[in-house]
């Protein structure tokens, strides 16, 4: 799978709330269907993820195949109404093995998650990505997307700044004279002003002050 997925058929469709909902519903159904049809997670997934899945791994391939074909038909029927014609035709080819279905489902799940993220539906995008099984999580694009959609991680820090009331007052009083410039202020006084942040940092980094200045661009 490559980054070309960013330009796939999902992105060419008109964005609407109904469309987003459709995708969310599809993603949820895909996940649900996988759980119900395969029992052991995704076909082609050879490593057990937990005790329950280890048990289910004893299922034979013969029992997986009908479920896989069922999932393929399900996706095809779901996509029929809103995929462009060329994608629809591709969806009609006969699914010959469970791994192929798994790859296609993963691709659809990825596209759904990406499209939801692009529509700022962050929570739904996370839910869609949650349908990707552990065995498929090593795919680089899945890793990248999961990383971007990960909830923030917080940690308390002993780092502390000083009260900037005087610096805020300087900004209020003097902003009109420094429009477009980057300024460094400390204790209510201007330390430096520059056209770019890089230039400002060159000025303030060498300064050895008790407290580091506040940097701000007057836009």
């Amino acid at each position, binding site marked *: 799978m490559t980054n070309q997925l960013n330009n796939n058929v999902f992105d060419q469709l008109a964005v609407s709330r109904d469309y987003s909902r459709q995708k969310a519903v599809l993603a949820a159904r895909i996940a649900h269907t996988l759980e119900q049809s395969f029992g052991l997670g995704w076909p082609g997934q050879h490593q057990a993820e937990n005790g329950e899945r280890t048990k289910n791994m004893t299922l034979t391939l013969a029992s997986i195949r009908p479920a896989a074909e069922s999932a393929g038909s399900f996706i095809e029927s779901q996509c029929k109404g809103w995929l462009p014609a060329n994608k629809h035709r591709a969806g009609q080819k006969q699914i010959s093995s469970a791994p192929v279905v798994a790859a296609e489902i993963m691709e659809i799940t990825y596209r759904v998650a990406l499209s939801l*993220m692009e529509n700022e539906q962050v929570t739904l995008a996370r839910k869609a990505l949650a349908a990707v099984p552990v065995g498929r999580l090593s795919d680089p694009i899945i890793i990248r997307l999961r990383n971007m959609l990960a909830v923030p991680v*917080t940690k308390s820090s002993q*780092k502390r700044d000083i009260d900037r009331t005087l610096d805020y007052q300087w900004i209020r009083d003097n902003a009109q004279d420094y429009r477009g410039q980057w300024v460094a202020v400390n204790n209510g006084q201007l330390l430096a002003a520059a056209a770019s942040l890089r230039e400002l940092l060159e000025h303030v980094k060498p300064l050895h002050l008790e407290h580091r200045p506040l940097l701000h661009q007057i836009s």
Partner: protein
Amino acid sequence: MLKTSDGADFATGRARFLDEDANALEGTAKVFVKIEPSNLGFAILAQLDTGSAWSILKPEIAEAMQLMNEAGEPKRLSTRFGSIDGQLKRTNITILADDGNSLELEATVFIPTEWTGENFLGYGGLLERVRFAVDPQENLFYFGPSA
């Protein structure tokens, strides 16, 4: 510091905020809080915006953070300035406290290719795991980690 009804900490740090930006052309008050992006080494101001899907850092700041070469997710963000191209990147940002503890966040932020607006702290990927409260009388921003 602020407590919940059962006595637990709601906020673990607080900082005075800038409640207006003299350069704001539309003249409406806004809340600017102090943050320190990783690798920058200095405090900067970012506008609190719970309506923003993502946080936004100016490209110059991302460059100073050495974030531009990091892998990101290409994205087009709809803003009041129109649609902006850029990338989502995972990085570390500290919300600075004047009193109590600061809060370090590993968060997802949007780095526009070009941007004339402010830095923003948005809900998705950042504020969604921060408890915060604003005291407009004292211009104090209270914050702490969400459980």
